């Protein structure tokens, strides 16, 4: 079903078409939509990272905001303390921060399954939220931290400031590479074990796989990619704020997965796009209360479209 192994020509053709469209997009789209597409790519990366847990391993994480947020704050730390601001250092700091948090969460929460796992990830993300929110001296508290955008640079060679278009390309490059990496991971023997955990955990354990260790690694990897998304978001928006550690963000990530189609990697990105489209659409009539209709649509999709948009489209195309 998910993560079809083997590589068909069809896949690479589709991949190239979509990639080409995304490369061209910022050159032809008006300012608002260009920004929109860049953001969807970032949220899409976050959604893909959580799909590794939700769709492939069968662990619904309600705590991805912690990894994403720590990625943001890690980037902020690098950009505020090191002169001149260095993009790559921001990435490294962000990944390290996310990895530390992910290791902590993974160690404890993988002891639990199903709902218990979800609740503990949720609670953990709230711990980090409270810490960040109240530790004003370090994190800026409620106001968060703002900083200047680092230039794109290759040490010793070039250093050029981002324009919205080049930033879009940078984000696209990172997200594409992450996608290919994640796709590789899910199709590797490691990814197969994760899927076998999802299908039947006791059997996987009985065959002799150290299930807990696999789960810990899965959470770690997932946290790293989520942290990377956080770095990108921080670089794009030039701030880190506690709102992004709050569990509402985690909830949105779950929504992306459900809407797009869990266990497909591409689906969650599509889901992120769909969610933001719905938000744009409904904001016109419902202003900031757009989550009323979106929540209803989400609930209906959980009930009647468990495969998500991608599953729905696939079935339609196969008919």
């Amino acid at each position, binding site marked *: 079903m998910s993560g079809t192994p083997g590589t068909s020509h069809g896949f690479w053709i589709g991949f190239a078409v979509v990639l080409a469209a995304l490369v061209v997009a910022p050159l032809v789209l008006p300012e608002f939509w260009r920004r929109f597409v860049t953001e969807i790519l970032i949220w899409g990366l976050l959604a893909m990272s959580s799909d590794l847990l939700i769709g492939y391993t*069968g662990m*619904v994480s309600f705590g991805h905001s912690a990894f994403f947020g720590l990625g943001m704050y890690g980037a902020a730390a690098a950009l505020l303390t090191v002169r001149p601001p260095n993009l790559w250092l921001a990435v490294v700091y962000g990944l390290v921060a996310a990895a530390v948090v992910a290791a902590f969460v993974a160690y*404890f*929460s993988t*002891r*639990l399954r*199903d*709902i*218990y796992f*979800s*609740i*503990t990830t*949720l*609670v*953990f993300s*709230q*711990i980090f939220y*409270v*810490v960040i*929110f*109240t530790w004003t001296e370090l994190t800026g508290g409620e106001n968060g931290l703002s900083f200047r955008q680092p230039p794109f640079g290759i040490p010793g060679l070039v250093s050029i400031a981002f324009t919205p278009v080049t930033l879009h390309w940078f984000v696209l490059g990172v997200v594409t590479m992450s996608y290919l990496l994640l796709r590789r991971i899910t199709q590797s023997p490691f990814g197969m074990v994760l899927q076998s955990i999802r299908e039947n955990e006791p059997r996987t354990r009985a065959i002799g796989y150290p299930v807990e260790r696999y789960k810990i690694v899965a959470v770690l990897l997932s946290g790293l990619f989520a942290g990377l998304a956080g770095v990108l978001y921080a670089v794009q928006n030039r701030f880190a704020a506690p709102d992004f550690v709050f569990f509402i963000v985690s*909830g949105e990530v*779950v929504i992306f997965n*459900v809407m797009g189609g869990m266990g497909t990697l591409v689906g969650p990105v599509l889901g992120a796009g769909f969610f933001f489209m719905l938000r744009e659409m409904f904001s016109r009539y*419902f202003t*900031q*209360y*757009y*989550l*009323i209709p*979106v*929540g*209803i649509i*989400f*609930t209906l999709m*959980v*009930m009647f479209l*468990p495969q998500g948009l991608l599953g729905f489209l696939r079935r339609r195309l196969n008919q």
Partner: protein
Amino acid sequence: MLAIPFEEFLVQTVNGLVSGMILALVASGLTLIFGIMDVVNFAHGDLLMLGAFVGSGVFLSTNNFWAALLVAVVVIAALGALLQLTTLRPLLGRDPLTTILATFGISLVIQNYALWQWGPSARKISEPIGGQFQLLYLQYPVYRIAIALLSAAIIGALWLFMKYGTYGIWIRATTQDRVMAAAMGIPVPAVHAAVFAIGAGMAAASGVLFAPLVGVTQTIGLDFTLRAFVVVVVGGMGNLGGSILASIFVSLLEAYASLFVSPAQAVIVSFVVLVLTLLFRPTGLFVPTPK
């Protein structure tokens, strides 16, 4: 470490017990629904909040707290039954995780509906029982003690109902063996709807009882939901007695912690308890060791 005067310690003990009883009321609704239907109701805190708003509406027009409490419980219980019938019943037999997702969707809708309907400013319900009494060095509101007692009374009534009432036996039988309960003629679908209604009603009751202390806003449920989740896990999922003990335990710890740190940070104490529980006793603190 600073020496804490004994009197402050005593006051915090009373505070901890009071908030522990409210938390226990919130958590027991959650536990009830989980124990019987394997459903983690993500919208529990939102039902609490909605109950508080309904209560404040009734209070505004009648100026009667008890009428507000009663109407809120009945309305939210009915809403709970409706939600169960429309969203959760069709999911019966599907992966239990889908119920989290569905109730999460409901939670989003309720939250934003409340914001849209009532706006962000807080509403006040005045205490039905005024007055203060001398507790050591400070004037302590009588109402806080009254809430604790009322919560205890509601939980006690639930316990008696579950233990001796016919419907209580139906509910427990359904919990243990849904199929056999049906074969005995117990209307299982109705039992499920009723349990959801009871859980929702208890959430509404906690919302209205708590409202005079903090005022009614959309976020009134949020803080409770997370702490209720914590005590439900710490107490052993689905174990009513366990989650009540865990509520009191965690609230006492938080109260003592607030002697040293700000209340916002004291919340972390309950999270630490959760982590330690998971580490050393993942089946829950207040359940007998499984054989």
